[in-house]
C-alpha cells in the first residue's frame, strides 16, 4: 500500500527507532527519512522505514485521518484498515 502510517518516536538507537503506532511498538529504520528525527516526533512508516517526519502542526490532522480509517463499524472486512494494520506490523519487533 502507499498510504504510510503515522507513529510516535519513543527511542532512537543509531538508524533504528522505536516507534509507537496506536499502542503497538515497533522498530523502524531511519535510513530513508531526510530530516533529523528526534524522540517525540511523529513519522510516517512505509514497509518498516520512516519515509517522512510529520511536521508538528500536521500531527493532529494526520492522526485523525487514521482514526477514521481504523474505526471500522460492522464486522465486514475493511481493506484500508487491514492495510494500515499490516503497515503497523511492518517494523521489526522490539528487541
Amino acid at each position, binding site marked *: 500500500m*502507499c*498510504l504510510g502510517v503515522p507513529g510516535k518516536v519513543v527511542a532512537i538507537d543509531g538508524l533504528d527507532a522505536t516507534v509507537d503506532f496506536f499502542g503497538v511498538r515497533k522498530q523502524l529504520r531511519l535510513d*530513508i527519512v*531526510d530530516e533529523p528525527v528526534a524522540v517525540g516526533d511523529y513519522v510516517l512508516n512505509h*514497509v*518498516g*522505514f520512516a519515509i517522512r517526519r510529520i511536521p508538528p502542526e500536521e500531527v493532529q490532522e494526520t492522526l485523525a485521518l487514521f482514526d477514521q480509517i481504523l474505526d471500522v463499524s460492522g464486522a465486514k472486512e475493511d481493506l*484500508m484498515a487491514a492495510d494500515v494494520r499490516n503497515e503497523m506490523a511492518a517494523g521489526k519487533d522490539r528487541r
Partner: protein
Amino acid sequence: MSKDLFQELKFRDPARARALAQALARNMDAIGREVAVMHVCGSHEQAIARFGLRAVLPPTLRLVMGPGCPVCVTDGPEVDEAVALALQGVRVCTYGDMLRLPGTARSLADAQAEGGEVEVVYSISQAIELAQAHPAEQVVFFASGFETTAVATAAIALARPPENFSVLSAHKYVPAAMDLVAGSKETRIEGYLAAGHAAIITGWEIFEPFARRTGAPVVVAGFEPLDILAALVKLTELLKDGRPEVANVYPRCVTREGNKAAQASLWKVFQPASGRWRGIGEVPGGNLALTPAFAHVDARRRFAIDTGPVRDDSAAAEARGCLCGRIMLGLATPDHCPLFGTACLPESPVGACMVSSEGQCRIWHTYGGVPDLRQVG
C-alpha cells in the same frame, strides 16, 4: 446531490465536501463533454470505493484506476522465478499479498505446500533477520512494489546485507506505465492523479516532463476523501483551461524535489529495465533491475533460476478469461468480467486483481460489488 449521501460518506467536513462537489460540477459544465481521468494507486481506489466517492462525481467525469497495484502487475513468469527458487531449496521471503499471487501455473503458497520454505514478511528488515538467523541457508527477498518501496530495498542493499541474502526484484516504476497508458489510443485518458505518498520520495517535479510530453495534467493527491475531491477539482480546472501542468494539492506531505538522498540511493542500486507487466505487456523502462554494482545481492545473477519445470503459460489466469490487464489499463472495470464475484472471489482468486488488497477487483468486491453505482441507485 442529496444531503444524506454526504452524511453517508463519513466526510469529516460535509460542507467542504459539498463545496468541492459543486466546484467539480461547474468545471465539468464548462468543459461540456465527457472526460476520463486516471489514478494509479491502490490506496486511492480503496478510499474512492470505501467512501463511495464516484457517486458524487458529475456524470460526465469518469475516474478510472490504472496500473496502481504493484502486486497485480508482477508478471506470472516473475512469480515462477520465486517459485522455482523456493522449490530448489532457497528460503524465499516476500510481502503478504505476493504469497497467493499466481505465477503462470503456481503461486508461492503452492510452492510452500509442496515443501518450499516461503515466509511472509512485513518489511525487508525482517528478511535480513531471517538471513542472519539461518546463516547456512540462502535467503532471497522477492521484492515487489513501486519506487517508494524500492527505496527501502535500496537502503538495505546499501547497508551491507549478510552474504547469504539476495533480492529477486519485481520492483516497478510507475511513471513508465503512465507513459504507456498515455500513448495508448484506446485508453483516452486526459488527466492523472498521482499518489501522494510515492511523491514524498520522488517529489512532484518528476511528473513535469510527462505532462509536457503528453499534454495531460497531473495532480498529486492525498488519501482523504476531501484530498481526492480537491485534486479532481484542480485537475478539471487544468483541463478546462487547457493547461497541461503538474499541481500539488498535497503540500502537507509532498514537495517539488522530494527526498533527493532517497532518489540517489534508488538510482545507485536500481536501473530502469524494460520488462513485462502482467496483463499489460512490455513496459519500456517499467522494471527496476539491480545495477551491476549490486550483482552480489541480485538473485538473478547469483542463482541459475530454471523456471522450466514450474512454468505453464497455457494455465495462466489470462488464459482463463481474466480481464486484469484491461482493468489495469483503464479499459475495463471489474463488473465487465463474467468471473467477478462468481468464479473469482477473494477466497479463490482467478486473477491478480482479486488477490491483492490493492487490486481493483478485490477492492470492489470488498466494498460491495459495484459500490459507487449501488450508492447512487
